[in-house]
């Protein structure tokens, strides 16, 4: 896995909440036994017209202003539903390096912006998921709509998203689990790391059998 430190790229908007993994990559593309080739099928049913080939002009990511975008900003509960890692592969292979979604306050309870399994799968593939407040995300939506080609820098080491507005730079700090940050910054291979604990695993097995 490639280490993730800082990334600058064009911001694209997807104005929908509860985007499920069936939408991110529909089932017919899960039949592949490869780990690559999913980018062209990302958001397939929204992205293409009936013929499955012509871009749907109504779908936001098809807008020329978002060509080459690498930072996806969307609404709450992104990636819910199925555990398919193909969803993360499709987002990464399309070219996104980070997804930003809002956490929500529901009667004092903080509801995460991303579904659990999706977030875990993202970490394993070096795709950064960032949670901001609903107001901050709305702010990014407004700025992005106003400024064509708006770029953002995702600075993982400093834990901030910087929006490069024409008039000024605006930064939002974000929180991230230290273990996840460490994993992404160093681009680590989980299995190799865990195998360093082979003795502890064997001891556990001896204990519990």
């Amino acid at each position: 896995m490639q280490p993730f430190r800082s990334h600058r790229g064009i911001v694209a908007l997807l104005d929908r909440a509860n985007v499920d993994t069936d939408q991110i990559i529909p089932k017919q593309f899960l039949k592949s036994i490869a780990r690559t080739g999913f980018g062209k099928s990302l958001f397939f049913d929204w992205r293409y017209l009936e013929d499955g080939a012509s871009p749907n002009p109504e779908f936001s990511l098809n807008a020329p202003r978002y060509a080459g975008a690498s930072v996806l900003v969307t609404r709450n509960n992104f990636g819910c539903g199925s555990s398919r890692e193909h969803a993360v592969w499709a987002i990464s292979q399309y070219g996104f390096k980070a997804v930003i979604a809002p956490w929500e306050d529901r009667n004092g309870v903080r509801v995460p912006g991303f579904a659990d399994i999706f977030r875990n799968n993202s970490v394993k593939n070096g795709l950064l998921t960032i949670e901001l407040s609903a107001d901050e995300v709305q702010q990014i939506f407004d700025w992005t709509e106003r400024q064509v080609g708006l770029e953002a820098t995702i600075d993982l080491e400093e834990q901030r998203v910087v929006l490069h507005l024409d008039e000024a730079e605006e930064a939002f700090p974000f929180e991230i689990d230290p273990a996840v940050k460490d994993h992404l910054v160093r681009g680590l291979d989980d299995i190799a790391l865990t195998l360093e604990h082979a003795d502890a695993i064997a001891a556990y097995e001896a204990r519990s059998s």
Partner: protein
Amino acid sequence: MGKTLFEKIWDRHVVTDLPGGDTLLYIDRHLVHEVTSPQAFEGLRLAGRTVRRPDLTFATMDHNVPTDADRLNVKDPISKAQIEALERNCAEFGVTLYGLTDTRQGIVHIIGPELGITVPGLTMVCGDSHTSTHGAFGTLAFGIGTSEVEHVLATQTLRQKKPRTFRVEYTGRLQPGATSKDMILKLIGLISTAGGTGYVLEYCGEAVRALSMEARMTICNMSIEAGARAGLIAPDDTTFEFIAREDRPFAPHGEAFEKAVADWRGLPSDADAVFDRTLTIDASEIAPQVTWGTNPGMVVDVTGCVPEPHEVPGHSAGDVRMALEYMGLKPRTPITDIPLDTVFLGSCTNARIEDLRNAAGILKDRKVANGVRLIVVPGSQQVRKQAEAEGLDRVFRDAGGEWRFAGCSMCLGMNPDQLKPGERCASTSNRNFEGRQGKGGRTHLVSPEMAAAAAVEGRFVDIRAWMKENAYAAVS
């Protein structure tokens, strides 16, 4: 301070604490299916790694398999390649496979309990979000992605952050006609599809204790639809009786079973255990539920109406408008006015023997309404065999339904069973996402009883009133 069921299981499975706050957790059982495993086995191969515990790893094929009589002849070449890849991988890595021709093949979450692979107090994973189903046995079971599948294959462990706990108590008893499907849909309607994110749910209370294992599995199955990766129900005599019943080759037997039961009795949450969140629902007030939108939180009582865009808690008016447009529904339409083209009885949520019995009870000596197609897909070959021994297949066939072989079928339409664009389906499955059952297909999630009655009437009916009018007494 006492411990919750979750904490007891978690603590038993800690291999070591990792820097950064994660835990290395031992995994007791790993279930594998054809869709989420090929890249994981390929990863092992590329790294020159082996499966650490093939004896704790069990595979079957369910998502891609056709469910008609010609099912052994998989015509879609890509599905076929995926099925063959699983056969090759299991042979190469020494993993037990319940393949297409096996009498115990079926949906992964249905065969686990049938085979006795699922028992209380374990950690279980599968590259499938509905692994939460197994939590009905008081076992910590959750879905993982393909990278994690590879990690478990190689190490028999997972690096995990400890989730929080959320206790959902159902007081009172269900009304006749209301089911465990309605209990879980009601909950999701209340807390939304994100409300359980980051938590392990524990379902308890009088209404839960009164449920059979089949019905408990339905609740735990849909924990993921509330955003929770896992749902738990404390093991009790109902659990032990289920495990002792029938041929469960991997469950403990004889003296080992008695010893295990003694241990399992210590698992339930202590009286003074503290949960991070709690919620109480009066089960006696739960009406049969019907989803009207494009996620399981978009749900209403059968006596209700399709809502106005601004009146759905937890959803923006824009999202509701998009959902209604996709579903082809207008606000204020009574749910019982919604006509149907298709009724799907199946999936890991509701295709166990009891589900089929309940649906057959309603379809017996009745006919499916004109223009409605009924597909009945047992969850496993074992369920199919049992249903045929009880004559349920004849009830479905006589009513005009199709009786199929085991598989995921129209739950996700990755196989030949799909809705056509615009078709409207009453489904006993778990997801009403756009396109889930076929591109442009419109899914309404309901219980098996509600689905069967909808098949007879060609539209949704309140099963409680319907049972009274038809002088029908619920089987369970």
